[in-house]
């Protein structure tokens, strides 16, 4: 673990757009990523299967284009974005709302943090041992917006922290994108409102971000899984076709036995 002072040539120039740029910026991993072309992908912790899939697909498209994915390493959308980028052999930056040494997640996010340390960069503007407090996350959200060229909000209910990032993105002059969601889905209420008010541009696919969509082969069966996981019965498909996709790794079974696209 080390830090970048403002005077350091490696200090990311975009962070200077903030009214009070973080000084120093603590990091673990590859600090050069901070100055690369970055896209922030953020969203709620309580994501839906739809949000998870979109966050992942956008992150993969970024990774394929050599763009660094910036997010906050929270549960839900943030984790899906980081994991998508890493799975596509891309790079990713996680901006934490607490000190790097105080950050001690469990389970899936612990493994994710380890991967980011290897292939990306963990960043925090707070002293290493400083434990998390509510206000720190709001400040961190501003840093995420500052580090990125553009910000994509995948899913955010009203009052979500991701909307704070969105506000900062507008204030800092970053391009703001939001992923439209089903009407009535609380997880998409905030993103739909961003689009409706004209503050954010709607994302209709990786093309919206100027990226090339990863050419995914489609089939009627895969299309039926686009909205989210289904039980084998609800899929109404020939078992042999499903089995083929399962064994090819195109779909996987969730712990509850439902099938989902990878």
């Amino acid at each position, binding site marked *: 673990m080390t830090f970048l002072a403002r005077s350091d040539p490696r200090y990311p120039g975009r962070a200077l757009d903030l009214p009070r740029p973080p000084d120093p910026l603590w990091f673990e991993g590859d600090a050069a990523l901070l100055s690369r072309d970055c896209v922030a992908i953020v969203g709620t*912790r*309580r*994501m839906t299967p739809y949000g998870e899939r979109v966050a992942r697909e956008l992150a993969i498209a970024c990774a394929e284009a050599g763009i660094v994915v910036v997010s906050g390493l929270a*549960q*839900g959308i943030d*984790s899906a974005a980081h994991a998508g980028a890493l799975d596509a052999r891309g790079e990713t930056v996680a901006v934490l709302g607490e000190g790097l040494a105080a950050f001690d997640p*469990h*389970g*899936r*996010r612990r493994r994710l943090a380890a991967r980011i340390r290897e292939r990306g960069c963990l960043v925090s503007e707070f002293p290493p041992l400083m434990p998390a407090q509510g206000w720190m996350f709001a400040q961190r959200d501003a840093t995420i917006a500052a580090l990125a060229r553009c910000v994509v909000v995948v899913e955010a209910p009203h009052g979500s922290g991701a909307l704070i990032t969105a506000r900062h993105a507008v204030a800092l002059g970053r391009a703001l994108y939001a992923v439209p969601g089903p009407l009535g889905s*609380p997880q998409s209420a905030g993103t739909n409102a961003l689009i409706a008010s004209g503050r954010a541009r709607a994302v209709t696919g990786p093309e919206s971000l100027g990226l090339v969509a990863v050419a995914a082969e489609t089939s009627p069966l895969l299309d039926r899984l686009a909205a989210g*996981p289904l*039980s*084998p*019965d*609800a899929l109404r498909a*020939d*078992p*042999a076709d*499903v*089995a*083929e996709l*399962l*064994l*090819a*790794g195109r779909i996987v*079974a*969730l*712990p*509850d*036995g*439902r099938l989902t696209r990878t």
Partner: protein
Amino acid sequence: MGLRYRPGVLSLAHATNGRLQAVTGFARVTACALWGLETELVSVEVDVASGLPGFDIVGLPDTAVREARERVRAAVRNSGFEFPLRRITVNLAPAERRKEGTGFDLAIALGILRASGQLATDIAELCVGELALDGSVRGVRGVLPRARRALCAGIRSALVAAENATEAAAAGGDVISVATLRVAMAHLDGSARIAPAGPPPPAAEPSWEVDLAHVVGQATPKRALEVAAAGGHNLLMVGPPGTGKTLLAHALPSILPPPDPEEAIIASAVHSVAGLVDPARPLLGARPFRAPHHTASRLSLVGGGTPPRPGEVSLAHTGALFLDELTQFSPLVLDTLREPMQDGRVTISRAGASATYPARFTLVAAMNPCPCGRRGDPAAACACLPDEVDRYNARLSGPFLDRIDLRVHVPRIPYEELRDASPRERSADVRARVVAARQRMAARGRRANAELTIAEIRRHCSLDASAERLVAAAVTDSRLSARGYHRLLRVARTVADLDGSDRVGRDHLASALLLRA
């Protein structure tokens, strides 16, 4: 006829009549000791010798056996016999294993009466029963396996309490049902012979509360249940509350194949040891279905206590064990299930003794998909955070889940489907397929495909070319582990058996895969 105690005469007899002092002797009676389901004939040797009055039991008796002294003394006296004021030594041979329980009372009392000359004939029968202080004979646990053991050793006749009579008769020998010590004596000395009890009543005709036809929709879960019943595969059902997981599980007994006679005896013997036999119907007519509550302790699930009693896993032997709300069970309790799921038996070891019970059961478990239960439910939004769901799923350990071959999602059924009144397949039809599949398995020398070893999988689960192609790529790309591959083949074998096919085809493999094999 030996000496009879007449009230008021005893002291006189001791004081004035020298006859009693001369009564010394030796007798041998056969009883049977029980450790779990393991039995061993015990020779109860009684020596009545002159000397200071005393009553000792040797041969590693436990507390319950040692307390027989008090019960036997009172029972003998209150039955109108003389309890000899002699030095009485009872040895339970073989003397090096600890004897447990109260089943030796009758044998000890009869031995004393024989050794003291009050019974003139030798006792060839197996004697099993506890004595009440008034001389009546009480039933004990585990009479069925004890009577079976005696029969194997050539002892055709057994003296047991009236309430154990049908159970002992189920083992096949002649059973003399004795209500009191007096009745037993009268039978043995020939003054009032008792006719052997008739053959045990036939097992009750099984009737099922839940039929598969009661369950609407749920094709895949029903299919999984059928495969589990046929192949003995363990099954986990995951779904939101109220979607019919419990109902499906309770339909399982209705499609399980009937037990063969040997299995029925063993399962009944376990129930006998647990003291759960219905005297009117000692033999189980159907495979057991046990559904312990999720607050169950380790002891109640795998067995234990003093003496070690069989737990739910053993009571479910040859049948099914249903664990509803699987994640509510303590992880420690679930981990103790690993041994019986692997070995088909449980060994309970304690200082000085260990008991082994059979525990070959099909596990059927049900759980919610997440802490709030609404994950994947189109009718309600799940309020759980991803980490909470991960923690919830992590309550089931990997080694435990490795032993579960089938895992299916039980989704909420749309209203239109619920109203659908078209005829559905009945349990009896499914059961016929299951029975036929079991016969195919038996022809290969295994009771159920879940028990196939890797060598047997290689021998019996040959894939046809199209099926081979389907899995080959997945195995080479290591998307399918070796363990997963073998599990898939086992389940596919069962699917093929249900289909009446010798070869495992592409469709069988595909169906097996959809059951999350």
